């Protein structure tokens, strides 16, 4: 914690970070507006959600060890069977907490 209203230069840093973040969030959408959305391009775009999410969570989960892997596995199974996302998330978290507490 620190006194005073704002750190000297904080405005500049925050606005610069805001600008580059907005650029990253909007540029893909903008670029795809200038590319013909052929069936082939659409197929590529449809693969993005799975690709982005799996490329993110698989390495992170493996690093987190057994609790993470069990949580992901159980959440997936519960979701496949019940299609209730809150139940799947709760089951995954319960698995993580249980393994951390008892193993």
């Amino acid at each position, binding site marked *: 914690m620190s*006194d005073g209203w704002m750190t000297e230069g904080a405005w500049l*840093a925050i606005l*610069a970070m805001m600008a580059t973040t907005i650029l990253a969030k909007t540029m*893909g*959408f903008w670029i795809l507006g200038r590319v013909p959305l052929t069936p082939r391009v659409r197929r590529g*775009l449809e*693969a993005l959600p799975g690709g982005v999410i799996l490329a993110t969570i698989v390495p992170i989960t493996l690093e*987190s060890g057994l609790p993470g892997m069990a949580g992901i596995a159980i959440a997936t199974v519960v979701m496949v069977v019940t299609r209730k996302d809150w139940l799947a998330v709760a089951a995954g978290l319960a698995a993580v907490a249980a393994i951390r507490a008892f193993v």
Partner: protein
Amino acid sequence: MSDTSPDTLASETHVPGPAPFSMDGFWLGFRRCFVTTPGIVVFGMGFGAAASVKGLTFLDAFLFQGLVLAGASQYVALEIWSDPLSWTTAFAMAAIVFTVNLRMMLLGAALRPWMGGIPARQIYPALALMTDPAWILAIRYHREGGQDWGVYLGACIFLYLLWIISVVPGYFLASALDDPARYGFDLIMPIFFITMLVPVWRGRVDALPWLVAIFTGLLVKALVPGYWFVLLGGLAAAITAMILFKAEEPSA
């Protein structure tokens, strides 16, 4: 768009009317995000606590959270915060945030076929509010047949409010925070993402692109520091899907 010659039709079908928007959709997206609350609160409070420890003023931390709105990249940039902040440091922080967030161009790109018809003055501010959970929640809704982009905006707004509220107790209670790992809250976001991905799966057509993404992600993470594994893994999936694509149906 009255041109009906078959060879141009395929590339022009992507200019539909704007996706519909309703307040019912907005509140649906808003409500569907409730399940992420513990994860977002822990993540948002964590930033407040980290900022507090780093010596930011409350206003620094609050504006950082509310204006930058960029999850993990905020934590990374915070590492080089200094008092006072020089131009060079500010520039370096902006560059770090950009590289960590570059993957979000893929998220925006994936929304194009659904939201391409929405007027720029509406869709670009909405894209600026995009966060990963809102995006995947909207993608799932769309894959299940939904068209109302209010769902996307409602999810963005809920997550934004939760994000800027959670930084406040995090900042002031920094030293009193319990260990979130005890309840598994540190893993709630990966668990939420995989849960949302289940309905997005369409069967065999996704198998190879998704596998390629996993292996690319693992490989790049092992070899290259930073967050490039997300961007490159996602791109690898898209490229694989495009290579595998065979025009099953005639272009009309």
